[in-house]
């Protein structure tokens, strides 16, 4: 990977100098295309864009792993290189000839997306907190976008030193200047809602994000000499950085953002601004309708077949989808009762309890440590998911894997309900490499007037760990109910492939 990066940097340098040479442009285009296929996560612009304008070359750094230093180094390298221009020109010409011949020979790997792609994604920043180089680059990027950097809080357990740990009492908005000209106020509000936990749950977060983007699009005007398709995407980048500083993006949000960026880039350049905005707004509405609302209806329909009279169903925490399913089943006059399992410190189960009791469903409530006491009464377990990973693991609220484990020990079937837009191409085998650390002060509790952990920061060898997610291995899960049907856990990569071909 390092050689690739260096090669790319060299190419960028050449690009800046020999813009007029057509053959280099052609080779650059093909290089760019190849690199774009390799790094689709950061792909902001499709390959169809002609790299004619020099200004856009900085703004379309999709192939480059790090946009900032690359755009800077050619500027620096220009001066010394000019003095050794002859030697360098010779070497470059030779390299170009080699590359051109190699590409002519090996044109197959850049084939259409039907074939297997070596998808090497860039490692996201939020799992590289222990790498000072990455942190510096992030700080530079945020400075450029005029977004404040959020600082970590408290003693981090050594196993998790690669993750961020923020305090809820220090939201990012305190560091923003008022009025903030860079970030749209709807986004600022959204970021605050995320970081304070007011909007929580992957569906809620995605829908809130899409509504905020709709507001942004409505208020957007194309500046002169710019195209809407490119400029709007660039406008969205600082917003996304801001939101990910407030709270790391979820897989569903990531997929929604990818969809929006694709739709924006596909707007033809001759389209009028009003029409383009209207189209985008209707695209977003369509996405929400299809992927979230209709999907919930389809999943509810399939799940109701699995619920029979006299069932005792166990649910964990507050999943909007599972609550929807239970309410629908209750409307259909199926007689069942629900056991809601909850866990500290989030205690989301109380919200689910309120919603179910309001509908009239008879419920029982226990904490997660009592699960092995209550499980002999249970006939089925319904769990929600945050994301489904490509190796069949289910990423969900911490404690889900525990419930699946105990259910397996008591031979109770475990059903996971998940919409397809939450499927993601990452793979993960344990809950350490990529997770979210919540505010450690949440674990502190006062019982009988005594708060044991009040001064935990003063004790050097004491740490508090507040994980948000965990991964459940696929052998604990019996069935996944999605809007495409009921599939086993291991069929997730098949669904992903089908979706990619469709797109």
């Amino acid at each position, binding site marked *: 990977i390092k050689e690739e990066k260096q090669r790319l940097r060299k190419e960028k340098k050449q690009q800046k100098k020999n813009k007029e040479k057509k053959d280099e442009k052609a080779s650059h285009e093909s290089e760019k295309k190849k690199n774009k296929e390799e790094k689709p996560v950061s792909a902001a612009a499709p390959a169809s864009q002609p790299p004619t304008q020099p200004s856009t070359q900085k703004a379309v750094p999709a192939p480059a792993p790090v946009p900032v230093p690359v755009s800077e180094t050619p500027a620096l390298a220009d001066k010394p290189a000019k003095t050794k221009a002859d030697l360098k020109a010779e070497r470059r010409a030779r390299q170009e000839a080699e590359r051109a011949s190699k590409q002519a020979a090996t044109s197959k790997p850049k084939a259409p997306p039907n074939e297997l792609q070596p998808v090497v994604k860039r490692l996201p920043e939020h799992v590289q907190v222990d790498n000072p180089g990455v942190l510096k680059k992030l700080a530079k990027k945020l400075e450029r976008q005029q977004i404040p950097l959020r600082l970590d809080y408290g003693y981090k*357990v050594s*196993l998790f030193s690669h993750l961020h740990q923020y305090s809820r009492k220090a939201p990012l908005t305190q560091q923003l200047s008022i009025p903030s000209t860079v970030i749209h106020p709807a986004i600022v509000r959204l970021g605050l809602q995320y970081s304070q936990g007011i909007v929580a749950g992957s569906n809620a977060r995605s829908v809130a994000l899409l509504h905020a983007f709709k507001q942004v699009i409505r208020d957007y005007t194309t500046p002169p000499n710019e195209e809407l398709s490119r400029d709007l995407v660039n406008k969205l980048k600082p917003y996304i950085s801001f939101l990910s500083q407030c709270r790391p993006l979820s897989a569903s949000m990531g997929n929604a953002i990818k969809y929006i960026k694709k739709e924006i880039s596909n707007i033809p350049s001759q389209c009028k601004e009003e029409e383009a905005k209207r189209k985008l707004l209707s695209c977003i509405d369509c996405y929400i309708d299809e992927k979230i609302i209709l999907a919930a209806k389809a999943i509810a329909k399939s799940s109701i077949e699995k619920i029979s009279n006299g069932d005792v169903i166990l649910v964990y925490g507050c999943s909007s989808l599972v609550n929807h399913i239970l309410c629908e089943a209750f409307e259909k006059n199926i007689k069942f009762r629900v056991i809601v399992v909850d*866990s*500290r*410190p989030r205690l989301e189960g*109380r919200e689910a*309890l*309120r919603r179910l*009791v309001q509908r009239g469903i*008879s*419920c*029982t*409530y*226990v*904490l*997660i*440590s*009592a*699960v*092995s*006491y*209550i499980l002999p009464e249970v006939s089925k377990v319904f769990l929600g998911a945050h994301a489904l990973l490509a190796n069949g693991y289910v990423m969900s*609220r*911490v*404690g889900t*894997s*525990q419930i699946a*484990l*105990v259910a397996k*020990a008591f031979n109770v079937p475990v059903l996971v309900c998940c919409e397809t837009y939450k499927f993601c191409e990452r793979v993960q085998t*344990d*809950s*350490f490499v990529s997770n979210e650390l919540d505010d450690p002060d949440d*674990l502190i*509790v006062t*019982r*009988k007037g005594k708060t*044991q*952990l009040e001064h*935990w920061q003063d*004790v*050097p*060898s*004491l*740490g*508090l*760990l*507040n*994980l948000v997610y*965990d*991964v459940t291995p696929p052998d604990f899960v019996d069935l996944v109910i999605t809007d495409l049907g009921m599939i086993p856990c291991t069929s997730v990569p098949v669904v992903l492939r089908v979706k990619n071909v469709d797109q």
Partner: protein
Amino acid sequence: MPGPDKETDLTERIEAFLSDLKRGGSGTGPLRGSAETARETTALLRRITAQARWSSAGDLMEIIRKEGRRITAAQPSETTVGNMIRRVLKIVREEYARSRGSSEETDQQESLHKLLTSGGLSEENFRQHFATLKANVIEAINELLTELEGTTDNIAMQALEHIHSNEVIMTIGRSRTVEAFLKDAARKRKFHVIVAECAPFCQGHEMATSLSKAGIETTVIADAAIFAVMSRVNKVIIGTQTVLANGGLRAVNGTHTLALAAKHHSTPLIVCAPMFKLSPQFPNEEDTFHKFVSPHEVLPFTEGEILSKVNVHCPVFDYVPPELITLFISNIGGHAPSYIYRLMSELYHPEDHEL
């Protein structure tokens, strides 16, 4: 005459002990550790032996049984009381047998050979009177008390055999035995401890503060994260409330989940339990096994209206089957769970299993 005064004094003490048990046994965590309960029970039994009126061993056993039934009825979940009573009864039997001069029946188990040779159950009615019996019994009870004093230290002494350096150890809730065990090992070795807080009583917090003050690297996690962090744990060391006759445990709630997670990752589960926690009960007794406390701990009254429409459970104990346990560490050494039945036959007489 000191007789009647002694008796009233005795009954007073018994009553005080009973009310203490009833109050102290609420689910907000034992106000006294089980070691203290065991010591107080034994001291009380010694006092009964010394002060009550009895002429033969049979009388003494009757008195002890009667008082024992009352005391266990006051707090059925506090099994150490019953265990101590059975130990003392066994002591009385042994002393009687020794005074009579008959060879000690070390093997109390019924065997086919014994059935054939003895021709029916041996009739020991314990009616003979021995002058030295009282003194012998009291001496033996004193020995038992010294044994009880040293249990925690004996267990802690074995710590270095089981903990190596740079280990990650997981525990749940608060156990004084485990605390002493880990602190003893920390004097010589460096390791990391993860404590699961064990909601709703959150006794893990106390354990963590106490361990970290001794200089051990401690991390507190929520119960929900037990399976998530288990893959990095090398050993699980827990305490328990009772060790049952089949080798299973009656431990604080959440322990079964911990044991299942340890089994899934093939992590050894070590139970530090002194001998006085061994009880001849089996886990089948549904109505006496579980103990529940106020659901206010789980869903507080501030939640409002939904409280009347919802069932809330707050069990205190969990059953852990013996297949999930790797090792028991007690004050007389380490044992496998399959050996527990043998230890029980050494401690208690089969006729005393039902008080």
